[in-house]
């Protein structure tokens, strides 16, 4: 017996193209590194630990599967694959067959590729978001959030210049929204062929935002401005009642669905989650936060790792371009956010801290924490978290608005 056909994970390394084989080994090592960095809290552990495991396991566990054509006689063909997932299968019969073999295929087909998992994450985000700061400072929060969309806006023409078609370019541009579920949703609608690499690039970069965003804040906002205290104004002491918050939720949801029906599932999920928080329904709150949000995040991480199969990714020439575009999009988003912080600083006659601008990037609550941390480093007595949370929640809303606009305007180009 050939030893390599007994241990197929190793044997297949010698049967496939050398570049793919090397790629598999690199991805296995990368998976191990991601788990370690997640464990050390250098990267976001909620996504990185399941993702690293998935990445290492899928690239190690390749095997040769015999595929027998039903109408093609007894002779079958050998196919290099894994028995976890097949993201490229789209025929109904093929999917039914694969769902009985690949253990994660039902989760992928029924929750990932139709955007349900993105909506579940959004419901969870809604339930953990306090919208009081948005209702207290609506104009400044929205202004900062719109400036933080600079990455979403400027990446689109850059992607077109790099040779993407409008659908792919718009999907890549939404990486600038810094909102994983949004990227997933847009790429599913506008360019299914790029859905896997775009989502992976977006989540990879989002988890490293925590590392490079503080550097952008430090580079753009000098110490004396970061240490600035915001003098209290009339609206700072006013209380926003739960009644006002829930009325805003339902009216904003209906108004945004009316304007952008293509993004209605996202609006519904976010505002419903938030309304459940405001209506004080602890059982539903626990369900959305502990079960839906964490369950969806776990499967999202695991599936993203498993989708990092060297066969699928290295065969796609667009991956390198997407890595560059993702970096540009998130970098511009951060720069735009801080510029927005400076503009509000000017409008409020210097009674504002420009470092709050970074929170306009909607990676909630990470960017709000980054803003507070950058400020606390130079002056421990300055608390800007409530302003930062307002900008961050508005970031989620403006991201959904821009996603709706991109999908509505670009969809005709893809058909």
């Amino acid at each position, binding site marked *: 017996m050939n030893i390599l056909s007994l241990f197929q994970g190793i044997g297949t390394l010698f049967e496939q193209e050398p570049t793919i084989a090397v790629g598999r080994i690199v991805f296995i090592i990368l998976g191990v590194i991601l788990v370690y960095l997640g464990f050390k809290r250098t990267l976001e552990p909620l996504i990185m630990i399941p993702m690293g495991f998935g990445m290492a396991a899928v690239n190690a566990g390749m095997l040769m599967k015999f595929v027998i054509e039903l109408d093609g006689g007894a002779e079958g063909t050998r196919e290099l694959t894994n028995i976890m997932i097949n993201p490229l299968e789209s025929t109904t019969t093929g999917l039914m067959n694969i769902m009985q073999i690949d253990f994660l295929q039902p989760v992928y087909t029924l929750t990932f590729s139709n955007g349900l998992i993105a909506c579940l994450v959004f419901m969870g985000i809604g339930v953990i978001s306090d919208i009081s700061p948005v209702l207290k400072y609506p*104009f400044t929060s929205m202004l900062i959030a*719109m400036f933080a969309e600079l990455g979403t806006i400027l990446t689109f023409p850059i992607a*077109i210049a790099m040779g993407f078609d409008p659908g792919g370019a718009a999907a890549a541009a939404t990486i600038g929204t810094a909102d994983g579920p949004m990227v997933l949703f847009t790429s599913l609608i506008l360019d299914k062929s790029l859905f896997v690499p775009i989502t992976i690039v977006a989540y990879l970069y989002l988890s490293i935002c925590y590392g490079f965003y503080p550097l952008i804040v430090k580079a753009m906002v000098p110490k004396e401005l970061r240490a600035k205290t915001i003098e209290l104004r009339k609206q700072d002491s006013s209380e926003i009642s739960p009644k006002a918050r829930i009325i805003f939720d339902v009216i904003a949801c209906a108004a945004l669905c009316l304007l952008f029906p293509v993004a209605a599932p996202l609006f519904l999920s976010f505002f419903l989650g938030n309304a459940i928080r405001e209506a004080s329904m602890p059982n539903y709150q626990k369900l959305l936060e502990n079960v839906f949000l964490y369950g969806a995040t776990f499967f999202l991480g695991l599936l993203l790792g498993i989708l990092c199969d060297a066969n699928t990714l290295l065969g796609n020439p667009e991956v390198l371009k997407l890595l560059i575009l993702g970096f540009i999009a998130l970098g511009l988003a951060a720069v735009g956010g801080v510029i927005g912080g400076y503009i509000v600083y000017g409008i409020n006659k210097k009674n504002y801290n420009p470092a709050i601008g970074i929170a306009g990037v909607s990676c909630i609550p990470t960017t709000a924490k980054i803003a507070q941390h950058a400020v606390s480093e130079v002056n421990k007595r300055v608390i800007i978290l409530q302003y930062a949370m307002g900008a961050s929640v508005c970031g989620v809303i403006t991201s959904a608005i821009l996603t709706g606009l991109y999908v509505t305007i670009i969809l005709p180009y893809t058909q």
Partner: protein
Amino acid sequence: MTVGEAFLTSGQIYVMGFAVALGMAALIKLICYVISHSDAKAAAKAAAKAAAREGGQVQ
């Protein structure tokens, strides 16, 4: 789509997005204004009722 057209399209998207975002902010202000006024009215009504009841008891 050319790069120039892409610039125009994304500019158009940004302007529309900005308008919708500012519209949302105005909507928030309106909701807060209406709710605070209706709450203040209800509180004044309740206070007047309580005062009337108290006055009745004294008489």
